[in-house]
């Protein structure tokens, strides 16, 4: 027990690293993923900007990236990571693959969220003479807000899982902690506490996301 109290700063440090990695890569991945998700929807046949080439290219790239497990993706893109941040280890080294991993994930989830916007509503505003940009930004994105929040919630949770693997490149974080103490030194206590922290974190994020989505839905 005493030993565990001594380790509180270690847990704190790891949690902080996880939060930094998740937060930063989520932010960038959202900036990339949301526009790609929009593009994925509006370039489809019979949508606002039908364009087969853009749609199929995007669709294929996303599928390829999405089919790689994170640990493999991380290794596979080491040259790219080094090109961008100058290193392939540590937090910086982990954030690049985390972004590459999460952006297509977010764009797929965005696609689903935007697809849930009633086609009839879009048609109604087309019929009223709204421009296509107005329809994307003022109708689709707004109507899809609950879905977008849930999509980002799922992406965040996925990211937490991926950061655990980022421990493999010495990025730190809770996953790294579990790996070093729990797996390599067979320290059951540290392992259990790490698991508990992760479970609580994921629960919190999911509840927060659900709450926000419900708030946005405003359904009686």
């Amino acid at each position, binding site marked *: 027990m005493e030993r565990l109290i001594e380790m509180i700063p270690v847990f704190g440090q790891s949690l902080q690293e996880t939060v930094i990695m998740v937060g930063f890569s989520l932010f960038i991945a959202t900036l990339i993923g949301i526009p790609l998700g929009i593009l994925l929807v509006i370039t489809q046949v019979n949508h606002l900007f039908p364009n087969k080439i853009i749609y199929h290219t995007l669709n294929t790239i996303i599928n390829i990236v999405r089919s790689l497990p994170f640990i493999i993706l991380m290794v596979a893109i080491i040259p790219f990571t080094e090109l961008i941040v100058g290193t392939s280890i540590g937090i910086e080294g982990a954030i690049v693959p985390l972004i590459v991993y999460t952006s297509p994930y977010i764009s797929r989830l965005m696609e689903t969220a935007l697809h849930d916007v*009633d086609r*009839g*509503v879009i*048609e*109604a*505003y*087309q*019929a*009223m*003479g*709204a*421009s296509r940009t*107005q329809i994307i930004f*003022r*109708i689709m994105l*707004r*109507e899809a*807000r*609950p879905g977008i929040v849930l999509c980002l919630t799922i992406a965040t949770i996925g990211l937490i899982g991926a950061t655990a693997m980022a421990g493999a490149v010495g990025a730190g974080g809770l996953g790294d902690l579990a790996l070093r103490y729990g797996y390599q030194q067979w320290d059951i206590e540290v392992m259990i506490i790490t698991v508990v922290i992760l479970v609580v974190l994921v629960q919190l994020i999911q509840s927060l996301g659900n709450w926000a989505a419900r708030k*946005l*839905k*405003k*359904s*009686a």
Partner: protein
Amino acid sequence: MIQLTDIHKSYQVGNKQVEALKGVSLQVEKGQIYGVIGFSGAGKSTLLRTINLLEKPTSGSVIVNGQNMLTLKEKELRQARKKIGIIFQHFNLLSSYNVFDNVAEILRMNRVPKDVIKRKVEDLLGLVGLSDKANAYPSQLSGGQKQRVGIARALATDPEILLCDEATSALDPQTTESILELLLDINRKFNLTIVLITHEMQVIKKICDQVAIMENGVVIEQGSVLDVFSNPQEQTTRNFIKTVFDDQVPQEILSKIKETGPVSKIVRVAFRGDAALDPVLGTLSARFPISTNLLYGSITTIKGTALGILLLHISGEDQAIQDGIRFLRESVYRVDIVSPEEVRS
């Protein structure tokens, strides 16, 4: 106001070509309420959507308000669409906006000043009877209330035409009635031209001036509602009218009457409005040596005008019957000989 000429529309479904519209023409005058009725799949929804080019016809011309819609550039088309409001069967409201914002959003998109929007939306909500619901969300409204929001939204851009795409089909009869009243009201108030499609003859009967009956992508019959109701030409039209009043003579009676030969006839008499009060039948029996038997009688209101339909079985001397029918033709709106079958030219 609206002139559709020889509209064709075909879709590619898989590797099959489906023809939704096969050369439809119709003309709607300003201030008219024009109804298009047909079963589902008849092509009426596609037809309605060609007016604002939500559906682009494969061939044909669409002229709205003197403007050839098919030659407009995207920006001009958007401008033209602002003058054509539309309401839908499933309302298509924004679920994340309250009632006020649902009506206001299109005005904001059009960069209307804030204070103007506020006044306008309040007026419109007053018009549709939802002033107290401005802050409610669509999910908190009944179907009828949602359609009222839809109507207010459609009127926000001051359109000259309102398209109604099965606007009452998802509503119960009573709510339908009140929505139709509202449409009639705004038609009169703003001299708004309304084109509606429906599969309910009640809707046509209640508010339309003109009607077109569609089947398999073509208009099979069109004319003033009163004319079509008093003398339908096509079987499909008769079937629709039957849903409002059923004046079919049972087959047994028809064949019995047929046996009696030329000494008797079944006559369908349609009379309008005040003619209902004239003692036509009394005069008929008194002036001509014929006997008149009433087989069926019904009176209904078509957009405020009474339309009565009688089926008379007249028997007597041939000449007397002819004279009697001539007298009827002079006195009432329409007389058609049902049996023996009249040869139509």
